[in-house]
């Protein structure tokens, strides 16, 4: 069986805006650089599972509220 092709999408920008957090603020909370948060938001970079979980935990929402695979 061939794996389904798709792309990891996220709602980081929306969740961040709701909380009035800057990219730098989120980066500090999850232990990443601001450039990495920017690259993830633009969907140029797919983070590791660990960072993806840390981002969801920072927003205090479920994993699937941040990440989707389409």
């Amino acid at each position: 069986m061939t794996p389904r092709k798709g792309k990891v999408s996220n709602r980081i920008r929306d969740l961040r805006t709701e909380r009035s957090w800057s990219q730098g603020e989120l980066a500090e909370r999850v232990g990443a650089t601001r450039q990495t948060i920017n690259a993830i938001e633009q969907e140029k970079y797919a983070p590791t599972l660990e960072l993806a979980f840390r981002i969801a935990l920072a927003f205090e929402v479920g994993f699937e509220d941040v990440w989707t695979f389409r």
Partner: protein
Amino acid sequence: MANAERYAWLSLVAWIGIMFFLLMRFTTGVEILGNSLGFEIVEQSAARLLGIYISITIAAIIAESVIAGATAAYAATKGVESDERDAMIAQRSSLASYWFVAIALNVIVFHVLASATYGSPLISGLNLTSTTGVAFAILFVLVGAEIVNRAALIWNYRRS
């Protein structure tokens, strides 16, 4: 701009400078400040080759130390210095420089074997039967690999 990207830009400039120094010391052609720049290798004494090698090594150590120190000091004031994306990009860039070295060494081996078999060199002007030729080829590959690594770092930061 990420700290590692800032480092890559500065380091790229330094390594291009070292490559120019290498070409000026080993080759003929355009003359800059008493040194020649071209693609024809000039045979040199062992003592002079040793001097060039030591100069390049010292220049590389000083340049890398100053650049790495300055960029790290700047980054220390800006929060997190590097993360998983930086590690991933560094890994990809190392792979690019590995491929450069692998291809360059294969070209050199082919050049040596073709020269020995057919008498005419694959790369004209590169005589690998002399100490100068061997020293130049190895240093060129080493410096070239650093340039490829820094260029790949910059490209990967722009792309991902």
